[in-house]
């Protein structure tokens, strides 16, 4: 008999509180008051409460709801990433949307529900929950991508994302079906026990391949990345920040949950396929980013490249790989959301001020913001003492330990390429003269959010063991 226990509810409190706040905001919206601020504060309070509850829940992971989801431990750690990403995005969005004249309450509701979907993805102990989480998150994101609905680029982005996303969902379902067919269960814990014998079954392997395809689409890995630059460019910049951090982190969280924590892939063909995708992502992402003139598109390709670095950790499939990715995700979330936050602020009206050249002489106009942007660029390029360096270091180390030194070498070589386009921005900001028409005041909430991200990027670069120690016990379910 299926029973819901009290502790199931208690352990899931972060998820429940967040969802309730989303529903509340929705009802407030439906009540018809055209006051997006109500929705803003409701969702903000929901996210912050959920964040606090997650902190309290950081101990060992506990399976709840009849082994359908895991709360605490690994899930809690990942939730911290999603919730921080949501928090920063919400804070950054308000001033951005007001300026773009798209300030609507449902925006925050969608962010909150997408975050709830992410939390399900990281918590999933069953493939059906994986599916549920991915869909909940994706559908919200489709809408968010096209949120500025009078804008052509936004419509195009949303439609493309939806079409290709639906395509990927098909493969996800097909993969789950094949795995269920060969193993007789959708429960990941049960599958993990019989993985050794299942991995000889080619239908099971094809099922896993389908999962790889679907997950790779969500993390924007080559060759399933084509949607990313268009969508990142067309979506509101703060949504792009949210997608490229929270959504990507969530996709990685499930990817790791299934392929590292459940499956035992080192030495199998799955591992080499993942390594191939990782290598392709690093090369294509970094090389194409060089040719971009639009900062948002550059960051889109950069995010494909970072997908590649992190995938090396999954391909390695060892404990170091998992720890590396978990560290990397945090570092990446803060440096990327910081960078997008600044881009969203520089962006003035529709499609203006998004070119590299718009950043010329930026340091003279906005010295403090230029310093913050440089911190994010250096960190993205993986230069110590910023968090990005240790992220790369850990995943490459994992690859070397898994006898995939070639992958680490590709990673380092392509990182070198990436220095070009990250530092190009820094050079433009500091060493070129530009027109000085930006003197607008930076909104306080936005600047605090970005500064917080920068502080964390530096702190984690000096003191990485702060996080690494937390993730030590997470390996395997």
């Amino acid at each position: 008999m299926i029973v819901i226990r009290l502790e199931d509810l208690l352990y899931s409190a972060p998820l429940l509180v967040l969802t309730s706040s989303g529903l509340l905001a929705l009802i407030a919206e439906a009540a018809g008051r055209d006051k997006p601020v109500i929705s803003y504060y409701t969702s903000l309070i929901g996210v912050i409460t959920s964040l606090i509850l997650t902190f309290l829940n950081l101990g060992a992971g506990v399976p709840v709801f009849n082994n359908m989801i895991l709360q605490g431990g690994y899930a809690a750690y990942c939730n911290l990433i999603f919730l921080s990403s949501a928090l920063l995005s919400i804070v950054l969005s308000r001033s951005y949307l007001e300026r773009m004249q798209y300030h609507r309450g449902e925006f925050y509701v969608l962010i909150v529900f997408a975050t709830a979907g992410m939390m399900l993805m990281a918590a999933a102990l069953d493939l059906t929950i994986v599916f549920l989480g991915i869909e909940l998150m994706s559908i919200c994101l489709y809408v968010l991508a096209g949120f500025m609905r009078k804008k052509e680029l936004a419509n195009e982005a949303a439609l493309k994302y939806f079409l290709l996303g639906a395509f990927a969902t098909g493969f996800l379902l097909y993969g789950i079906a094949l795995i269920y067919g060969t193993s007789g269960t959708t429960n990941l814990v049960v599958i993990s026990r019989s993985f050794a014998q299942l991995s000889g079954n080619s239908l099971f392997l094809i099922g896993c391949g389908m999962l790889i395809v679907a997950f790779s689409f969500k993390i924007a890995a080559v060759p399933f990345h084509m949607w990313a630059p268009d969508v990142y460019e067309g979506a509101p910049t703060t949504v792009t920040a949210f997608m490229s951090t929270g959504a990507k982190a969530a996709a990685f969280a499930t990817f790791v949950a299934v392929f590292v924590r459940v499956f035992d892939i080192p030495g199998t063909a799955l591992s080499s396929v993942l390594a191939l995708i990782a290598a392709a992502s690093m090369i294509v992402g970094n090389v194409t980013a060089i040719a971009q003139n639009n900062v948002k598109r550059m960051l889109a390709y950069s995010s494909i490249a970072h997908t590649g670095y992190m995938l090396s950790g999954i391909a390695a499939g060892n404990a170091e790989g998992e720890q590396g990715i978990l560290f990397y995700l945090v570092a990446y979330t803060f440096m990327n959301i910081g960078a997008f936050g600044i881009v969203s602020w520089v962006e003035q009206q529709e499609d203006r001020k998004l070119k590299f050249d718009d950043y010329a002489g930026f340091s003279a106009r906005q010295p403090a913001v230029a310093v913050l942007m440089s911190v994010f660029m250096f960190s993205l390029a993986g230069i110590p003492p910023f968090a990005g360096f240790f992220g790369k270091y850990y995943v490459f180390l994992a690859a070397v330990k898994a006898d995939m030194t070639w992958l680490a070498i590709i990673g380092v070589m392509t990182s070198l390429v990436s220095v070009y386009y990250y530092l190009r921005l820094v050079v433009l900001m500091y060493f070129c003269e530009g027109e000085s028409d930006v003197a607008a005041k930076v909104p306080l909430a936005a600047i605090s959010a970005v500064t917080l991200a920068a502080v964390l990027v530096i702190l984690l670069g000096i003191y990485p063991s702060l996080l690494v120690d937390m993730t030590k016990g997470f390996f395997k379910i």
Partner: protein
Amino acid sequence: MFSYSPLIVLFPLLGFLFLGLAGWRLRSEKLIGIIGSGSVGLSFLVAIMIFVHMLGLPVDQRKQSVELFTWISTFTGTPSSISVSVAYQLDQLSILMTLIVTGVGFLIHVYSIGYMRGDKGFWRFFTYMNLFIFAMLNLVLADNFLLMFLGWEGVGLCSYLLIGFWYDRKFDTGGYEPGKATTSDAAKKAFIVNRIGDFGFLLAMLLIFIHFGSLSFDAVFGRAAVLTPGSSIMVWITLLLFLGATGKSAQIPLFVWLPDAMAGPTPVSALIHAATMVTAGVYMVARCSVLYALAPAAMQIVAVIGALTAIIAATIGLVQNDIKKVLAYSTISQLGYMFLGMGVAAFAAGIFHVLTHAFFKALLFLGSGAVIHALHDEQNIQKMGGLRKYLPTTYWTFVVGAIAIAGIPPFSGFFSKDEILWKTFSSDYGSIPLWFLGVFGAGLTAFYMFRLVSLTFEGEGRYGHDVHPHEAPRTMTIPLIILAFLSVVGGLVGIPESLLGGNAVEHWLGPVFDPAYEKLRLTPHGVEATEYVLMILSVGVAAAGIYGARVVYIRRTELAELWRRKYASLHKLLFNKYYVDEAYDKLVVSPTVKVSDGFLWKGIDVAVIDGAVNGSARLIAMVAQNIRRVQTGIAQQYATVFVGGILVILIWLMFK
């Protein structure tokens, strides 16, 4: 109590961060000065509290480590695992150094409030100074080589920043045409020369890691304690470490940067280039005493280099005319004594000399600062004289410092220097020639110091009539008085047993050096009678030096001129510092520049490396443009690529 030790490091860090971020907005110099000095003062208070606590503990509990966090940890569980923590080790040696750094540092910070008044970089000065204290404390408190190295590099950086503090001022240094060089060039010289030493330190650290499998002091010294002397790798490790020390502590062959480092503001010379940073090499050798005990050959080299440096620098100091350069050579010379002490296994005596030297040399530098201040940036002692009546406090404190360094009892310098000389004479690792060099150097020291005193303060004023010297403000004179007091009584903590003292310093430091002493199997010999004779002898030499200087530079000033003409070539040799700068320029700098310019730059760099780099950059840009074209924006094509990817994956999974 020990758990408070991170506070010692924290306060200067906070001071640095606050002044660095907000200092330029602060209008009030007073506020900046209070924050800058206060942070160091608070550190000093915490250090005193811990020191008092240590005094009350039994000897075996005085050493403790406080770990803050794991800094670097990789390959755990494998033989090549490395784990380095940010952890501070408190023991008798490190707390003593901490007290010197924060105590003398605090006084110099206070002094700087007066000295730097009105400077447009006032906040920048205190920012750098706080950063320096932070780095220096990391150096002395580190419980592993890597953190020590971080501090080591950090103090080097601050030294660079502060030497070139007035970056656009003219300053003559070797290798440039007169009038062309600025203080930035002096800063660069210091930095580059130190790089050579640092490289030695780095190599030593790698060898230590390879040989001992760890970088933490406890592990390395613990494993070293069971080894027997004689392995060549220990000689390499200790010599490479010593190379690092010669850079930081300005010993032969890397001493050339220190005289030029006087380009910085005078408080910087006092703090960094006299009292603290330059003694880092001595501290490092003392810290690694066990390793040195395993390589007696290296100790011999340390002793010889120390003695030679002491003499050579002292002879140069005899004829220099820049007040700060005389003190700089004096510092090099005194550092030589400290290394002589290290080399003859008188580790405690060497550290004792670090302590007393910090007092009297900081005093002398600050005193010279007061003089320079009074004469509006005049540094040439030939253009001074007669300042005694205008600057009474400065004069008397300066004389105290000079007596202390000359080694007249009961001033502090006497006890520490004599302890080193006695050990040089009596220890198994010392020798009579080294002792003789030491005593001779002591005579020279007394002579050039009193030459300095005489030319600066006595006789008639030789400066322009429009200059009206005035005593320094109280923020400057009070630190002078305190340091003068310490220069007088500072030696009392180390009165040797032969003079019925307790030699408290040696007993205090004993547990730190016992492992090394055991390894060296030191046998106490030499009788007290001999010690008295030598003591009297060295006091006699010092007194003769003082007397000689006063005769030549006050009573019979014509003698100086006469000798200069008579021994013109010797004078020229000394005045030009044995042409070491010129020799380095001819042998090292110019060839390096030529090879770099003609071959490495235009040949290798432009043609080969730039060619390859630009070529690959062009290639990547070309590829990028082509890949970009695949991104057409048409969703159907995206789906096609998508399907292509699926096919590749499935085929790979089926057939691999």
